[in-house]
Each structure stands twice: as structure tokens, then as C-alpha cells.
């Protein structure tokens, strides 16, 4: 017998894997990587990172990889929203599942989208820059970070979709968060002593910064103690957001 959460995962995958979703998942980061990566290369020929000189496109690659859990999370949140819109939320709650299975079904799909999207971004990055990760252990660690990050962002968007009533508001809020988290992080530029203090504080309050930094180190440098701290921060935030999402979901109006 297939566990209920996996049946719900399969259902979510079947119902939500449409061209629009895939375009959002893959199209936007690919656009960043190809257009920004190549365009800014004229302005920033090389970035000095952890003792290596890498191209700007290479520097950007971990940023777009780390964006995948975020985008997948927003898709996860919209799944709950549309299930409520089309009446399936209540129908599934009277189905052969525990309530937590429904949440897990969405989180698992976000994880699949997140890791699948990241693999495609690695491919795009390779085609663009010719860079490959040499150590399997680093690839495994990146996947683990992406999986944990998926819990964080999916939980965040599940909370939003519980409280937001219209899809227009949901989309607007998602885009707003998307821009803040994306651009106030280390995805596009390094955060260092030259970064204004206010923006530095905002960037370090942004979980995406820790995800990008740890993925970047796993791609281009050797792992160090700060990466362990970054990963721990992501794990703790994911746990907190998951608890918050589970509590909010109990209040979700049917």
C-alpha cells in the first residue's frame, strides 16, 4: 500500500505539472542566468570568490539554483489556494488521509520541483559556463540544502495561502516577497563590507542569503564552519516555518 502522503504527492504532481508552472519554475531562473549572467559579464568580467576568479555567470549560478526552493514553494502555496478555490481541500479532508498528509503532499512536490529545477539550472549553467561540480558529496549536500529550503519556503507560502483570500492578492504578495528575497540576498552580488550596513542587515535577515552562500561554497570552494552555521540556520528556520504552517493550516477555512 502506498503511503497517503505519497499518493497526495502523485496527485499534486499530475494536476500541477502544466506548461505554465514549468515555465515559472524554470523559465524565470534561466532568464536570470542567461540574460543577466551574460549581460553583466561585460560590466563584471570576473568575480574574486574564496581565492578563485570566476565569471559573473558562474557567480550567479548558485543564486538561481538556490531560487528553486523559493519558486517551488510559491507553487506549493498556490496548490493549497487552488484546492480551496475548486473545493478539493474539503473533499480531501474527508478522504482516507491524516490532515498532515495533505501538507506533506504539497511539501514533497515542492521538493521534487525544487531539486528537478536545480538540476536543470546546473545544466543551463554548464552549457553557459562549462562549470561542473567535481565532488559527488558536494552535489549531495546541495540537494540536502535544497530539500530543507523547500520545507522553509513551502511552509511560508502555505501560511500566506491560508490567510489570503484572492488569487490576485496571493500573486501580488508572492511577487513582492520574490523581489525582496531575491534582490536583498547574495544571489546577484556578494554581501561584504562594501555593502551598505542597512542592506547588509536586511540581507542577513533573509534566509535566501544563507542558502545561496552555502550552495555557492559547495559549488566553488571547500566547505567551512560558516557553511555549517548557514545550513543550521536554514534547518532551524525550516522547522519553525513548518510548525507555523501546520498551525495555520489547522485554522484554514474550508
Amino acid at each position, binding site marked *: *500500500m*502506498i503511503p497517503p502522503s505519497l*499518493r*497526495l504527492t*502523485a*496527485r499534486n504532481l*499530475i*494536476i500541477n505539472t502544466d506548461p505554465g508552472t514549468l515555465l515559472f519554475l524554470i523559465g524565470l531562473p534561466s532568464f536570470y542566468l542567461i540574460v543577466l549572467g551574460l549581460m553583466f559579464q561585460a560590466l563584471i568580467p570576473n568575480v574574486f570568490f574564496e581565492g578563485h576568479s570566476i565569471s559573473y555567470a558562474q557567480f550567479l549560478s548558485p543564486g538561481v539554483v538556490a531560487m528553486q526552493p523559493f519558486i517551488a514553494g510559491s507553487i506549493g502555496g498556490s496548490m493549497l489556494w*487552488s484546492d480551496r478555490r*475548486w*473545493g*478539493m481541500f*474539503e*473533499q*480531501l*479532508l*474527508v*478522504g*482516507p*488521509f*491524516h490532515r498532515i498528509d495533505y501538507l506533506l503532499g504539497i511539501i514533497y512536490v515542492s521538493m521534487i520541483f525544487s531539486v528537478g529545477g536545480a538540476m536543470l539550472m546546473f545544466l543551463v549553467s554548464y552549457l553557459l559556463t562549462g562549470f561542473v561540480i567535481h565532488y559527488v558529496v558536494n552535489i549531495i549536500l546541495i540537494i540536502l540544502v535544497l530539500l530543507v529550503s523547500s520545507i522553509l519556503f513551502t511552509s511560508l507560502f502555505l501560511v500566506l495561502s491560508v490567510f489570503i483570500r484572492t488569487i490576485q492578492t496571493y500573486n501580488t504578495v508572492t511577487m513582492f516577497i520574490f523581489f525582496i528575497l531575491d534582490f536583498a540576498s547574495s544571489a546577484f552580488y556578494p554581501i561584504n563590507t562594501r555593502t551598505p550596513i542597512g542592506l547588509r542587515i536586511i540581507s542577513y535577515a533573509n534566509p535566501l542569503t544563507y542558502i545561496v552562500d552555502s550552495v555557492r561554497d559547495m559549488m566553488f570552494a571547500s566547505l567551512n564552519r560558516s557553511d555549517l552555521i548557514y545550513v543550521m540556520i536554514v534547518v532551524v528556520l525550516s522547522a519553525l516555518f513548518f510548525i507555523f504552517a501546520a498551525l495555520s493550516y489547522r485554522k484554514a477555512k*474550508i
Partner: protein
Amino acid sequence: MLEKVIEVDHLRQTYDGRNFVVDDVSFYVSKGEIYGLLGKNGAGKTTTIRTMTTILPVHYGKVRILGMDVSENAERIRKRIGVVLQNESFDFASVERNLKVYGMLWDVPREVLKARIEEVLEVFDLSSLRKVRAMELSGGQKKRLQVAREFLHDMDLLFLDEPTVGLDPIMRRSVLNYIRDKARKGLTVLYTTQIMEEADYLCDRIAIMNKGKIVAEGTSSDLKAKYGDLKTIHVIISGELDYNSLKVKFPEDVIVDNDEIRIVSKNVEDILPDLIIYLKARGIRIERISVEESSLDDVFLKVVS
């Protein structure tokens, strides 16, 4: 004695802590029985169903489904029941994919599912719509899909909350027959409707709810017998009628619906001449007049009013 599949004991449910939308409701349903829960909008039917199907917690009283307390065994209960909710629900996919996914959610073995999908597509007249997206279906077609998919999985008890809304009379009869056939094979059904003919045709026993309480219960014949000394005068009129003065003149149960007057009473022989005189005196033309034995509709009107 037949096994009790549903046992509701002094159930009271409230949304705001003060007003009880379900107020001291008790009933039972035996195995293989089709039990009708009737009532006008806001009578408490859907809240009762939502409690029995574990969506809402029990506030006061006891509810046992399939021998298990709903407060303690919600998940085990949900594995053995089917629920057709009043509100429409479907996945954003074709009719066929909706059915396949729903069957998969219930872990129906692939071969069994394939056969059952073909069966319900046929029974619910959805074969020609199998490739159509659910959101593009008409209201009645969506309802058919909603009812059809519930028969894909095995269950001991089926809750049907107004499942025939939007269906044409032929399809409605076909759905009712299908449900009746399943009940003969041992399925227990709790059925809510506002269409009395349906309840009369389908249900073994009926409870009428009003303002959160069960105000009458029994078989259709029992109810008609109990309130059966009632007869209904139907009058079709043309002209302006003062409802309040009519109500004063005939304090029996008078219902005026546009140009139709219905009076349910034990004493139609006495009332009828007076009514004709009353209408003529006010210059109201009588287009048609008839006296009928009580139907379940009349029983419902009598009990609820």
C-alpha cells in the same frame, strides 16, 4: 438486530459558542439503510454531515460512525466512508483524469480502477465528456462527476449532501436507482435533499430537521400516516391578494407563492367554501382549484412551519 452504522446521540453544534445550529439531535442509521435528512436551508443538515464526516469536531454529544467514536477515530472512519459534498469540487484536469487521480488517491488497484471508471462513465453519462476539462462542464455535469468518482472506491457508508442539484429528471432517476442498487448490496447511505419526491422514492427512513432539531422521523408512509389526515387545497388565482388578511381569515397553514395558494388542513371541507367566498368577495379570480391527499412535500411544510 441490524448493525448500527451511524449513531448520533444528543449532538449539539455551535459556531459562535452561543447559538446552536444543531441542537440536541439524535438518530441512528442501520446497515444497508438509506436514511434521508431533510430540511430547508440552514436547518442544520450540512453541519450534521460535516460532523459525521469528521470535518467539524463534536462540541456536545456523541457521534459514532461504523462503531467508532468520531472524536477518537477520525482517520479510521474516513478510510471507510465516501462523501459527496454539497459544494462542487474537482481537480483542474479532464473528467477522465479526475477519475483516475481520485481512484489513485483511494489506492484502488489499477485494473479494478480501470473497470470502475468505465462503469461510472457509462452510468453517469460522462463517456462523451471524458476528455473535457472539469471546469468546462455545466453545473449538472460537474455534479455527476462528483457523485461518479465516489463510487470508484470501496466504502461501507456514503454521505450524499444534495447530490442531484442541477441534474435533469432522467439523470436524477438514474442516479437514484444506482444508489438504491448499491444500498441493496449492503451500502449504507445518508442522503440529504430538498426535493421531497426524491426522499420519498429513495429513503427507507426520513428525518426532517428544522432550526437545528429533528422535528419528525419515520418512514415516508409513517410520516404521511401521522400527518395524513391533512389535505391540501391548491388554488391558482389571478388578482392582487392581501396575504396577511388571508392568514387572519384562515389561520391554518397557508402558503402563497405568486399566484398559487396552498392550504394544508384537516378540515378542507369546511375551509373550501369559505375560501371561495373570501376570494370572490375580493374580486380575485379562481383559475384552478383542487384538493389533494398529503404528499411528503405537505408533510414537510406542515412539520417545518
